[in-house]
């Protein structure tokens, strides 16, 4: 057996079919493969993106939580400070008020005491006058001894002070 026209025609027929397959079968297989590759690539990219987004979101959330915690701490600090201030303020006000009340009371007391003393002086003076007049057994002439009496009264008053 050697190379004959039969073999040549067989070869031609074979290549014709191969050409046919190349022309019509191959592209569809290739496009299916390429579509699949593209889909896989897209899927992987999407997964990567998703992962990255998730990481970003996580970092972001972490940041926000940290910030919020800081802010909360700050607020609590501020509130503490403020409350301390308020307590201090209130203390100051209370002390001032107390002092005021005390001074008012003192003033009251001293004016009351002055009044009482004056009344007492008056009474003592009149008692002294009454006693003296009794001792003298006679009516003290208020007119005649007015100077004496007032001097006495003044002295008592001075004494009482």
């Amino acid at each position, binding site marked *: 057996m050697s190379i*004959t026209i039969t073999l040549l025609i067989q070869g031609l027929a074979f290549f014709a*079919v191969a050409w046919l397959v190349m022309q019509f079968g191959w592209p569809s297989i290739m496009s299916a493969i390429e579509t699949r590759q593209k889909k896989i690539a897209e899927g992987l990219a999407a997964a990567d993106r998703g992962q990255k987004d998730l990481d970003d979101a996580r970092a972001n959330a972490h940041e926000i939580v940290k910030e919020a915690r800081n802010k909360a701490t700050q607020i609590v600090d501020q509130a503490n400070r403020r409350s301390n201030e308020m307590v201090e303020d209130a203390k100051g006000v209370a002390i001032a008020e107390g002092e005021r009340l005390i001074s008012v009371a003192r003033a009251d007391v001293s004016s009351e005491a002055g009044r009482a003393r004056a009344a007492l002086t008056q009474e003592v003076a009149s008692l002294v006058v009454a006693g003296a007049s009794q001792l003298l057994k006679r009516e003290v002439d208020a007119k005649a001894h007015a100077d004496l009496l007032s001097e006495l009264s003044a002295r008592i008053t001075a004494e009482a002070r």
Partner: protein
Amino acid sequence: MAAEGPHDMTGYIKHHLEHLSSGEGFYALHLDSIFFKLLLSLVFILIFIGVARRATAGVPGKLQCFVEMVVEFVDGLVKETFHGRSTFIAPLAITIFCLVFMMNFMDMLPVDLLPAAAHHVGIGHLRIVPTADLSTTLGMSICVFFLIQYYGIKHKGLVGFLTEFVTAPFHAEGMVMKILLAPANLLLRLIEEAVRPVSLSLRLFGNMYAGELIFILIACMTLGASTSSGMTYVMAPLQFISGFVWTAFHVLVITLQAFIFMMLTVVYLSMAAEHH
């Protein structure tokens, strides 16, 4: 020339249908079938294992994509058909499909090409389509036959497997009817089991043998042609057209036959694993 034609043709056809073999009678080895089957198996293994080893979870290459598509296709079919759990059946099906397809594909090559080449290196006979050799197809179907029995025993246990020989396909109520139906069941079952490998192998062999024979007959059109004969100029285009048409048509046949061989194997195995 015309007078010599028939004689030449007979010789040509006979020559093409003879195996390269060693040994006589029962011990004859079809070396060509063995060689091409081993060669194609090697190609299959190299491609698949090569792809598997270089397989990436990222964007696959075109070859990996192709292999993945084949694997997914066959795996889907197996999942649909075989309901048991098996890690073996899908790889078996892929191997059968690819290997039978590749062996069938040898039929596409010009029928004189490799034999002529072999002739030049001193090999007188060569048949390049292993599946057009009954030894190959029967060998494969006998393997499938033993797998069927193995799966039957594995899924039903030895007792269940053996009782099914006498209780199916005719189911009976009561002991008497069961005993009465047992011989018929046994007979049918034995026939069924025997027919499976035979039909499986003959279907593939018949298709491929006929395909090869038609290629040979088409080749006969210009056999011993000479430029001086007017017939040559008629027969040459005719041979080209019929060769082209038959090759194109045969592409479908070889794919279909590979698919059928694989599908029937899976179906038989799933039937063996299911209770009747």
